[in-house]
């Protein structure tokens, strides 16, 4: 499996990343991707921006572990995870998860698995700048529940 993990301040290009995933093997038939954007509706506050912090070294290891788990469950040829840190504005892309596989079912499952666990297990912290001032976000209960549903599908 080809794996690319990057935690970076710079923006990423979904088109370039998708093409790169398609080039890893002639066997690639399906590429799925998830792109997360900074939304302005967290907790109904008017968000003017986010500050993203991570734990250099540990974050990348955690992402690699999540990708390895997905690779054990589904047939995956390549995975790219890019997560931005630093200052971000509303509607800016913040995270990209791309999966290349022979078949689309594997690609969809692996992509959703990786983003679901990235949200609950990788060392990133979001600080929201809103009309109410700065505020560290707390983990969404819905994200924790979503991640748990994968556990219940384990064989």
């Amino acid at each position, binding site marked *: 499996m080809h794996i690319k993990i990057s935690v970076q301040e710079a923006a990423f290009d979904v088109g370039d990343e998708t093409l790169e995933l398609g080039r890893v093997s002639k066997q690639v038939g399906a590429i799925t991707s998830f792109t*997360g954007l900074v939304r302005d509706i967290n907790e109904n506050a008017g968000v003017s921006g986010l500050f*993203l*912090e*991570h*734990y250099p*070294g*540990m974050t990348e*290891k955690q992402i690699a572990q999540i990708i390895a788990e997905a690779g054990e469950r589904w047939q995956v040829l390549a995975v790219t995870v890019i*997560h931005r840190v630093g200052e971000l504005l509303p509607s800016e892309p*913040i*995270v990209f998860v791309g999966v290349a596989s022979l078949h689309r079912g594997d690609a969809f499952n692996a992509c959703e698995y990786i*983003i679901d666990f*990235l*949200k*609950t*297990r*990788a*060392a*990133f*912290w*979001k*600080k929201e700048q809103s009309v109410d001032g700065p505020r*560290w*976000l*707390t*983990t*969404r209960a819905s*994200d924790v529940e979503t991640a748990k549903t994968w556990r219940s599908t384990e064989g």
Partner: protein
Amino acid sequence: MVKVIFFASIREDLGLNETEVALDGPSTVADLVKLLVECHGAKWSEALSRENTLVAVNQTMVDDQHTIHAGDEVAFFPPVTGG
């Protein structure tokens, strides 16, 4: 010596990115927290004793009974909110 680092709201609450601690003999994460609170007082007690505060030793998540050794990197942080 043990390197102790803080992230996100805990880093801001303590006003500190990292510090170093000299431990006498075998110590658990709980022992380290107790020592830090003795040295620094109520603000540290509040930040490090929150129910949801997480701890990693050498970049692996552990519980407060995990044993710390000289040279380890111990990190305290709140629940993660990435993605």
